[in-house]
């Protein structure tokens, strides 16, 4: 009798148990720090072969507006997690400095900027939708928004598309 454990072949479970699983993110914020969570989690979901949808609404439209998507900002104002004296945070230049630092930290981790990230997600098969009401409210035309967008949807259609999805509102 041998003490060495030899299995015929342990094969990783790339199973189809995720077949039919869906994840949806609603992005409603237009700041740099609130843009990344959905993008990073969507990327993880797509790597798992999960059908993934992102719906951009309200301030989240800044993430897909060609004029703003490459220039999202991060402000320490009112954000105690920066551990700065709150009275200093509204000073001129603080938001610029905080934004630059966050960009640098993300780049050091090889995390792409928002426009590049959206293209990467689109290449992975992510569905990107703009909110119809927000498009009307901000008076946006199709050509104002990223070419990676799948389309403009009203809320009712979006809710229909994501039937059964795990949904996160950010």
């Amino acid at each position, binding site marked *: 009798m041998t003490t*060495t454990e030899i299995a015929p072949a342990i094969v990783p479970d790339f199973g189809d148990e995720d077949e039919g699983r869906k994840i949806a993110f609603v992005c409603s914020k237009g700041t740099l720090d609130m843009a990344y969570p959905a993008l990073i989690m969507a990327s993880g979901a797509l*790597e798992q072969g999960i059908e993934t949808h992102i719906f951009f609404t309200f301030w989240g439209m800044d993430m897909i507006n060609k004029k703003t998507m490459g220039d999202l900002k991060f402000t320490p104002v009112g954000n105690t997690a920066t551990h700065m004296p709150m009275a200093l945070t509204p000073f001129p230049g603080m938001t610029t400095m905080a934004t630059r630092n966050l960009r640098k930290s993300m780049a050091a*981790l090889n995390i792409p900027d928002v426009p590049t*990230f959206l293209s990467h997600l689109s290449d992975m098969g992510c569905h990107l939708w703009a909110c119809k009401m927000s498009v009307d409210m901000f008076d946006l035309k199709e050509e104002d928004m990223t070419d990676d967008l799948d389309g403009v949807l009203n809320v009712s259609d979006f809710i229909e598309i994501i039937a059964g999805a795990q949904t996160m509102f950010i």
Partner: protein
Amino acid sequence: MPLAAIADREVSVDAEGFMTEYDEWDEALAPKLAENIGLGVLTEDHWKVIHFLRSDFAENGETPTLRRVATVGAIPTKELFGLFPKKPARKMAYVAGLPKPVGCI
């Protein structure tokens, strides 16, 4: 660390079945690993990915992520999803005899 018999050879694998010893893999193993996960016959395009993964791991000690294969290896992400359907990052690592990628992006 458990051992597994792959193509009449004993190799070290982790609990999920990913090979753990870089030097225990050679090209003769890849078709059998691919078969194990239902990939079918490996084409030249599959080999291009496998070779990039192996050389990048040798250089950096880490299995490259999909994005790294696209940006450094110049193999488009869409193509990776075609070659290794559904879960390309893990499937290509498995066939190349490498651990799962640890990076998020």
